[in-house]
């Protein structure tokens, strides 16, 4: 499983705006920087075995709906 977090270049498109909900919901997989933005925004990262549900839960609460799960 892979996770992609959109970055939202220049605010002109959908992307992470630093709500931090993913890390609150599933801190075992998602991390945010000091400002509250997902540290892996703009990247596609592999989900370690056993954290698939965490990845799904974090994506499910993103208010921007910009965390895409690739099963």
């Amino acid at each position, binding site marked *: 499983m892979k996770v992609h977090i959109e970055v939202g270049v220049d605010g002109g498109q959908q992307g992470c705006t630093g709500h931090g909900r993913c890390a609150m919901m599933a801190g075992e997989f998602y991390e945010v920087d000091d400002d509250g933005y997902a540290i892996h925004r703009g990247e596609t990262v592999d989900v370690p075995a056993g954290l698939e549900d965490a990845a799904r839960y974090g994506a499910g609460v993103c208010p921007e*709906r910009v965390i895409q799960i690739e099963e």
Partner: protein
Amino acid sequence: MAFKAQETEYTQPTQADVDESIRKYGRDIYNDFDLDAPVFNDQHFEILDDLVEKCPVVHSTVGKGYYLVSQNTLVREVGQNWRTFSAAGGYMPNRPDGLPFLYPEESDPPVHTSWRQELNPFMGPKVIKGYEEQIREDANILIDAIIDKGKCEFVSEFAAVLPGWAFFKNVLGVPVEDLDKLVDGVESGTFSPDLDERGRKMGFVFQYLGDYLKKRSEEPPRGDMVDMIAEGVTYEDGSKSPWEHRVSVLVDMTFGGIATTTYVMASAINWLAENPEQRKLLVDDPETYMPRAIEEFARVFAPVVALGRTCTRDVELGGRQLKEGDFVMMVYAGASRDPRVVDEAKTIDITRETVLHSAFGVGIHRCIGSNLARLELRATFEELLRRIPEFHVVEPPTHVSGFLRSMRTLKIAW
């Protein structure tokens, strides 16, 4: 869990829906909506649910007229696209001429970006965590003042005070002796039923903040957000942000966080008083239920009901053709109750494992104070439930609603 692709077909309200609306609310809420109508205060949730379920794009004929979208996908379509839906025309419908714009909330990139990237670090989770001890202490000071009375009016004695203390003490660092008049100024300046008083109190807070920023700009720096605002930012064209922009940033930050959190806090306490079983869950197992409860309360008790944008071009939205210059409001309170994305959206349930909501907005203007608001709510519920685990409502709450919603009074006893 997978996010469904956006529906492109939008169903319009039927004549039967319109007739029912007139019967229930005394007006056609789909074609003749009014945020400030008393019925929107009195039958708030029923109206939100009708808007989100039955009408993709609602029209209001008030003043110059405006549109409203409530469905989750449509709210995101507007909020996430500042190029087409600009914040630079202000967030209020029928904005009075001559009212100064509040930065960065009422601006677009690149001006918005210049401010926001400098402000974000001061409101990020790491800095806010440092305020926890002080906020808990303040919650306990307020509880000390009421606990032996066995009763209180929760809005004026707690919920309207704590967010103000949290902000003015920790974020702005104003002298403690000025707290009372500032907290009262923000609260009455936003919600007083007497519009003259509202204007006077608002004017007082503006004046105070302008003077405070000036004073701080002449003092040795403390390394806080006020220093950063006083110093200003450099805009993309190389110019320095004018002084009046800096004052407006301070005003925006202040009003954004204080008069809003009060409503979530007080509504949650009202609901917990009336739902002892769920209250017991929170008392017995806060580790599991507190994070869920905070998001659920933010979802269903949205203080920022709706904020607006101005169309920068002709655009089709939710199956309706809008024109350049049209004003469209994102009903955040509705998007959090959209049954297309939330199961059993009308039910308040603090045991929900995942809570999707739009209480803090979407897009680049996402509420900058969301981390502080969550901390204030957590400190309040934990300290209050620890010291007063059982309480009941003595007199049902009263509310005030427009593009913001708040609670005026809530009498509880224990």
